């Protein structure tokens, strides 16, 4: 009897020392769009996330980290299966990565029900910002409306009358035009929704031509944006009717694809290459070094998501089972590529929104240049409907 007792104590000690020697790893499920028309977004976000993890010595909050990446193919069905796998088989501690709002809305509840914190690095549907806000949901980037609100504000101050607005028919597309209209007070020539993942915009361009607007505002994520701007330019409209875009449709990835016709276009963003803070400077420099391309706002968001996780895990001393404390730590904010970032109770950030213009740099490269400030410490429009504290 005594021998068995001793054995147990010994075994216990051995186990304890083992657990000391090998602190538990934190598992991150990263489900994102890595193939198809939206792939550029997911790949940039993933590269930004991985870069941050690497610069943190493959640790988050002092814990060794394992990032499990899966491709959702921009398909809600595939995403559900991937998330199911992450939750039930891999038993991840946190999830992030989803680019498209419709995908997030298809899988969000399943994640929250497992009491897993989801740090959105892109999709920011209004559905999760108001009444249906969730304690397990945070968005490190923005609420879907925000960038469009900024552009609505800008187009409004420029006193454009009769604006044609166009977006894909999915949650973020509807949020986009809602956001634009919230701050643009002039006349709307027409409000048109196209199909998500549509690539030929000839019908929409014909409609624009027929409506004879004074300006066009459109939000088209990923390859859709590239195609729209190319076709808009090919139809000769870029010279006739000015085009205004949110930062998503006028970032480094789109500029690389479209090229010269982009020069001169104004767009809105929460982040810019030349934001003057040490976190951003390091990010831009290291990203260029590691991947040999100019980072996009998606990359910055991926990078920030990793920093946000790092800060919160550190704050709870590596005990990721303390869900309530984790939430408090997330809300307290962290030092991002956009400077110190704070969050509203609905999990969305409070931050500045900037005006950018696409220009040709002296070295011939076409890049976005900061052109002013549109909103300071701006919150989303839904936070008052959220009952969380």
């Amino acid at each position, binding site marked *: 009897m005594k021998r068995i007792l001793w054995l147990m104590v010994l075994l216990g000690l051995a186990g304890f020392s083992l657990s000391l020697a090998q602190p538990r790893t934190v598992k991150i499920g990263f489900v994102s769009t890595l193939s198809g028309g939206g792939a550029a977004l997911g790949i940039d976000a993933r590269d930004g996330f991985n870069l941050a993890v690497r610069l943190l010595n493959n640790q988050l909050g002092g814990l060794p980290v394992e990032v499990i990446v899966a491709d959702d193919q921009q398909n809600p069905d595939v995403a559900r299966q991937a998330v199911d796998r992450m939750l039930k088989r891999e038993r991840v501690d946190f999830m992030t990565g989803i680019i498209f709002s419709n995908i997030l809305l298809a899988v969000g509840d399943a994640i929250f029900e497992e009491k897993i914190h989801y740090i959105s690095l892109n999709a920011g549907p209004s559905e999760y910002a108001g009444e249906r806000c969730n304690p397990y949901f945070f968005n490190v980037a923005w609420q879907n409306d925000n960038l469009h609100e900024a552009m609505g504000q800008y187009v409004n101050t420029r006193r454009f009358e009769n604006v044609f607005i166009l977006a894909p028919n999915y949650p973020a597309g509807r949020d986009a035009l809602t956001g634009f209209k919230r701050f643009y007070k002039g006349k709307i020539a027409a409000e048109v*929704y196209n199909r998500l993942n549509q690539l030929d915009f000839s*019908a929409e361009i014909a409609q624009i031509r027929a409506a004879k607007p004074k300006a066009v505002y459109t939000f088209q994520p990923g390859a859709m944006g590239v195609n729209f701007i190319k*076709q808009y330019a090919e139809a000769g409209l870029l010279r006739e009717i000015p085009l205004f875009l949110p930062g998503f449709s006028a970032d480094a990835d789109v500029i690389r694809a479209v090229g010269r016709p982009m020069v001169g276009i104004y767009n809105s963003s929460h982040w810019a290459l030349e934001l003057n803070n040490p976190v951003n400077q390091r990010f831009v420099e290291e990203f260029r070094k590691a991947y040999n391309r100019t980072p996009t706002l998606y990359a910055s968001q991926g990078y920030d998501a990793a920093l946000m996780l790092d800060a919160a895990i550190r704050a709870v001393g590596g005990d990721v089972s303390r869900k309530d404390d984790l939430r408090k730590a997330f809300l307290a904010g962290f030092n991002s590529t956009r400077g110190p970032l704070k969050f509203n109770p609905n999990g969305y950030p409070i931050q500045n929104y900037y005006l950018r213009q696409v220009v040709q740099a002296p070295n011939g490269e076409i890049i976005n240049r900061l052109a002013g400030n549109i909103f300071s410490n701006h919150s989303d429009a839904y936070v008052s409907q959220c009952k969380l504290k």
Partner: protein
Amino acid sequence: MLNGVQFGLMLFLLAAGLTLVFGIMDMINLAHGSLYMIGAYLTATFVGITGVFWLGVLLAVVGTALIGMLLEFSILRQLYRRDHLSQVLATFALILIINEVVRIIWGSQPLLLSAPEGLSGPIEILPGLNYSAFRLTIIGVGLVVAMGLFLLVNNTRVGMWLRAGASNREMAQAMGVPIKPLFTLLFGVGAALCAIAGAFLGPILAVQVGMGESILILAFVVIVIGGIGSVKGALVGALLVGIVDTAGRAFLPLLLSQVASPEVASNLGPALASILIYLLMAVVLFFKPQGLFPART
């Protein structure tokens, strides 16, 4: 309207190859769309290497034709005597294989293919009406290829063999038509037509994995409407489908927005336009079960 014609002509290029293969070899080839994808990828690659759009297209067309003939020679030839079900499954398997091979070679991000410099601007076709020069070129190319195909089918010996094969294969074989090389050649022609469609739709759409499947179903609708095995039917069917699809997309939302909110209109519009195509097919089949221009008697 012009957009409809442009899309219809490209559909025709796909459908022409499909209808000949289907009509003459009695072979359902789902992998036809994959050849279209290969054509687009090869174009993007060759244009990138040579820097000259037209040269790239030419190389891609030749390359795709060779790949098509290779496929016929190695795998599809075994399937002629099998039932349609086996053909469907085997060519579906080919789709999966080709998609993954393309993904391994070119990656899963869409490739960018730009219209050639001189054609990327607008052209004034009527006073005050601009139209994309590239799309106009597509229409031109489509018409030229369609005419060439008609000449080939109607005025040459090969064309005569083809027509004979389409209306009665056994008889044609008995009359000494060299079926085997003819089939390989035919497959190469079909693949080349796919490549042309891929090369010219590539700059408008995106060159990506899966681009073949969505258009494949439309091509099947076209050949069923037109009558299997008939090139003329394929042309008429393709133009019909192209115009119905584009016009439906452009005008239905406008019509609907008169009576409903823009959101509802844009929901229903494209869906109705898509349904319209299949409705067209169902109606045609109801009245003419063999399609508009039946090739077989």
